[in-house]
Every structure is written in C-alpha cells, then in structure tokens.
C-alpha cells in the first residue's frame, strides 16, 4: 500500500515536471491540485516536480531546443502550479534561502533577460528580489542592504547603460560594503572582460549559466 502511494506520488512529481516542460499550465495546476488533495508533501512536489521540470527546460534552452517564448511559457506553468502548492508547504525554509537582488540598470528598459535569470534562480532555490527595470545604481545597494542579500545581479542590454553597472560597484566600495555582496553582471553587450574591469565577481552569458554562477559564488541553497 505504501509502496503504491509512493509510486503515485512519484508519478505526480514526474507529471508536474513534464507539464512544465510541455508548457502546459492547465495540467500543471491540475496535478498540483491533486498533490494537495492527496495530501502529498507540497515542498517535495515543488522540488521533485516543478524545479526538476525547470531544470530540464534550462537544459533545453542551453541546447537551443527551447527559446525565450518556450522558456516563458514553461515558467508560466511552473508559477501557476507553485501558487497552488505554496500555501501547503509544511516546512519553513524560506529564511534560509540566499537572497539575490536583481534588476536592470538605469536607462535600460529591456528586461527579458533579467526575467529569465529571475525565473531560473527562483526555481533553483534563491529568493529573488526583483527591482524591475530602470533601476538607479544606489537603489541596488539600498535594497541589498535592506533585505540582507547575498548577491546583487545587474543586467543590461544596452551599451549606454554599462557605466551604471560600474557605479554599483563604486558605491559599494565607497560605503565599505563591497565584501558583503557578490556582484554579478550580464546582458547582451557585457563581456567577461567588462565584468572584470568594473570589479564584478562574475559574468554569465545566459540564464542557466547565471544560476550556475550563483551556485559557485554563494553557498548552494540547502534545497530548492
């Protein structure tokens, strides 16, 4: 009996993961509701189902099987199911998640790339504080201090706004806070050389690699 229940639970996890990969919001919500109705553990379902699904999506994205539209729809399916499952999480684990303050720098309103990174980080166990777009350098620092973030992640797609990225590092240095936060940068015009030049801790060329970079720079989250 318990084996077969385990088996059903595992099957539901697999179905959730498949729903995310299939960009199927209707089914992901249906399966999440089933998890809740059967009183299976919500946290495990998120970890083994939704996060697993997004990991697969991330791989497909890296392999150029999936592109931005596919990634967005997969994340829609993931978030819809997450909304169902979240209220039923029994363990309080939220406080342990490393916090990452994310934003697109001042003067740049392009934010697809940042949103992708946010989605991938979110589904990899980080608590993401999204400052949105057109964020002044000082605000990155203020927010990071206010929430006790471990990392500041800055994105841009326009070369005109690259200096604002350097400004964030400069402000941290001035306030003698540089050691408190990792700073990572990304976006179209950014190169590893630029990241190095402005004194950032790292650069990532894509959303999945940004999460790998976070994992490398920060102690990996205990769990998703």
């Amino acid at each position: 009996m318990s084996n077969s229940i385990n088996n059903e639970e595992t099957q539901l996890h697999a179905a959730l993961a498949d729903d995310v990969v299939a960009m199927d919001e209707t089914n992901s919500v249906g399966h999440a509701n089933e998890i809740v109705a059967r009183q299976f553990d919500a946290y495990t379902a998120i970890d083994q189902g939704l996060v697993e699904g997004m990991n697969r999506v991330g791989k497909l994205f890296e392999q150029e099987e999936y592109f931005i539209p596919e990634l967005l729809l997969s994340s829609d399916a993931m978030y819809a199911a997450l909304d169902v499952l979240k209220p039923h999480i029994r363990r309080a684990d939220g406080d342990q998640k490393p916090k990452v303050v994310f934003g697109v720098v001042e003067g740049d309103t392009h934010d697809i790339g940042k949103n992708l990174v946010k989605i991938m980080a979110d589904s990899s166990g980080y608590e993401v504080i999204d400052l949105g777009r057109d964020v002044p350098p000082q605000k990155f620092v203020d927010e990071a201090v206010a929430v006790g973030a471990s990392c500041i992640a800055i994105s841009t797609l326009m070369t005109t706004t690259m200096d604002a990225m350097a400004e964030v590092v400069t402000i941290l240095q001035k306030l003698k806070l540089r050691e408190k936060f990792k700073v990572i940068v990304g976006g179209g015009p950014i190169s590893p050389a630029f990241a190095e030049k402005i004194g950032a801790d790292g650069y990532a060329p894509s959303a999945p690699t940004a999460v790998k970079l976070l994992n490398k720079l920060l102690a990996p989250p205990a769990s998703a």
Partner: protein
Amino acid sequence: MAELTPNERARRLAAGADADRLPCVPIVGNTAARVIGCRVRELRYDAALLANAQVAAYRAFGYDNIRIFTDLYPSAEAMGAKVYAPDDETAYLALPAIQEPGQIDTLRPADPQRDGILPLQLEALRRALDVVGDEVPVTAALTGPFTVASFLVGAETLTRLVLRSPSAAARLCDLALETTLRLAEAIMDSGGTPSLTDAMSSATVISPRTFEQFSLPGLRTLVEYIHGRGKKVTLHICGKTQPIWPLMVATGADCLSLDNDASLAAAKTAVGDQVKLMGNVHPAAVMLQGTPLTVRAAVREVVAAAGDSPKGLIVASGCSLPTETPFENIRAMLDAVREIGFPVNRENLQETHALARKIPNSEPTLNYPGAPRHPFTEGELAHARKLAVREESTRTHTNPSPTCSRVSDSPSVKGRPRSGRGSSAFDAAAHETPNHPGAAGEGAV
C-alpha cells in the same frame, strides 16, 4: 590607388575590378552627436541636425555608408508606442502601444508623412542625400515587422503570443508590416534605401521555427518590394543567428549583417556564396572598450575569416556603435581596412595578425600613403595580447546571451546585387541594437 569615394569603390568592387580597399562601415548611430557636439536627444527631433551629424561623421571617418538612425522605435512610436528620449542617451521604449493582446484591433498602420518622428527621419534622409548622395549610399533604418510588433504589445507578451495565440501574433506582425512597407516606400521615394534591422528575430530570442512562421513572411514581402524598386537591401539581425542563416537568405536580402555572436568564417561557408556578409567587430568589447591596436587586430580577424567570401564582405561593427565609442577606434577601423587593401594583402594581414597575437616589440606600421604613425603604449600592447588570448580561448563556443546586443540595439545593412556583381552601389546600413539580446550596440532589443 588614391582613396575612392564609397560609390566609386562599390562600383569597382561590383564590377570585379581592383579597388583601394574593402568597404568598411563602423555602424555609427548616435555617436554622430559627439562628432558635432550636440545632445543625443536633439538628433531625434531635429532633422537638419540629424542629417548634419551623420554627414559630419561620414566625412570625419570616411566610411562607406550613411545610415539615418536614432533608435529602433520610430515605427512603433508612430503606431502609438511611447518612447522616452533621455537628454543625452539613446531613446528607449517606455510603453508599448497596447497593454493587452485584446486591443490589437485598435491599432492602425502609421502614415510616414505624418506620424511620430517618421517625417523627421525622412527629411534627414533627403537632406543627407542632397549633400553627399552622389558620393556615398545613404540609407534609412527600417525596423523589421516582428521587432516593431514586439514594441507594439511588449516583447514578453509577443513572445508568449507566438506560441499561445499564433493568429493574434500574426495579426500584429501584419499591422507592423503595413507600417514598415509604407515607410520603405517613403524612404525610396526620398531617394534612399531602407536598411533592415530586426533584433527580436534573433535566434537568441526565438526559435528558427518561430522565425519562419512570424519573421520570414514580412521580411520576404519587404525585400521583394524593395527589389521591385531596383534597390539592394541589407538585413541586420543581432545575437545568435547561425540557426537562421538559411532563413535570412530566404528573405531575399542581398547582404546579411551579423554581430559578434556569429562566426563570419562559418557564415562564409554556409551562405557566403549566396549573400554578401557584413560584420562583425564587437561594438562594446572592441570598439568601445578597446584601443586602436585591438580594433586593428579585430579587423584583421574579420578579414581573415571572411575577406574571401564569394559574394563579398563589408568590414563592419557587429551592431551600432555605442554612443561613446572613441573616435580613435573608429579611425583605427578604417585605417586597418586601408592597410589591408584590396585585393586583400594577405601578408599584411598575417603581419599585423601576428602582432596582436604575439609580442609586438616593434611598432605596427601603416603602409598606405600618408598614414599616420601610431606609437602604442605598453598598456595597449598588453591589452592587445590579453585580448588575443581571450579571443582564442572563446572562439569556438557560441555565446548565448539572452538578447542582443541582443535583443538589444542591433542594426545594419548593406545591399549588393543578388547576382553578386550588379551595378548599383551597395547600400549599406546598419543597425542598432540590441544584444542583445544581444545586443548590442545601442539599441538592441
């Protein structure tokens, strides 16, 4: 050979004759404001100033194509999108024309003679043509329909629509296409050539399948129309493009302008016998942040990779140049192309190639008549060596940035006779961007 005018050069190259050098287009966008000392914002709203700035930049650097361009948004703006133009930076999209797909049917195609800043762009085009039209091709940037559609409803919304509601996405693209066709007509009525730039169609953003479904039909219609009026056209897409090269060729474009996320050597092999290639010196890492030495090394890399491409090569930046690109780097790009000459001087290519790659204790020399001598500092040389090493180590991997300089500001263009040796001057153009993703000049998506 004495320095030719761009039109003379293009004619000679098209005829298969010798020339002084390869065509070269550092894609100068709002850097033109720095040339005449005005604010970037002024260019957007003053046609005479925009024409003056672009002509002055052309005269200062001597490149092969003038492109009237301020940002990627005039077409979408003319259909109701809100654009924010900072005092001294490239404008950006503040708000899409509609906030939800249900409002698509409220949109109307724009009238280029009346709506937004389109009349100003056309006037700037005419003014530039009046002044230098007999010596250099003058193009006007024409943002591709799919990219315009993304500005009409918002990039994220459009990318969801293509999968979730393909018919709504197609309706948006059709509306954008109608505006784009009207603008193409107005540009050609003014005597100029449209220069297509379509950042959102990058494989950094959408799949080849999505491109085929939503980007290709509009681009093909535009190219056919432009060809029907006897003009050649360049298509610029920034970010990753290798998976869509055959589809870009299928648009009928005469020249593909690629950015640094693409390998020109691979493009030469794949499609070089069908289209002219244009690219792809890194607009930010090399043109903005590099030195004259690194720029020259990068130009040599480009020529070594595709200088012998069957349908020709235009040495260009991968995307619109960042506004603050140092003049000396733009000059160095032209200098490097002059040194290499045409037919390409392989020896010279090797020599300076080796210089950037190894240890230049000797100064590089410029061997065209009247060339300035550039003493390079130790710092520049060290930087060049570092760059050469880094480029070596990253050469083989494809760089997946989520947008151009990517969806960023990318641009471009240049046309050349489809037969490869047609007669008209190529009309180069450039693009902006992203860069993406990827983009990444200014402007990308």
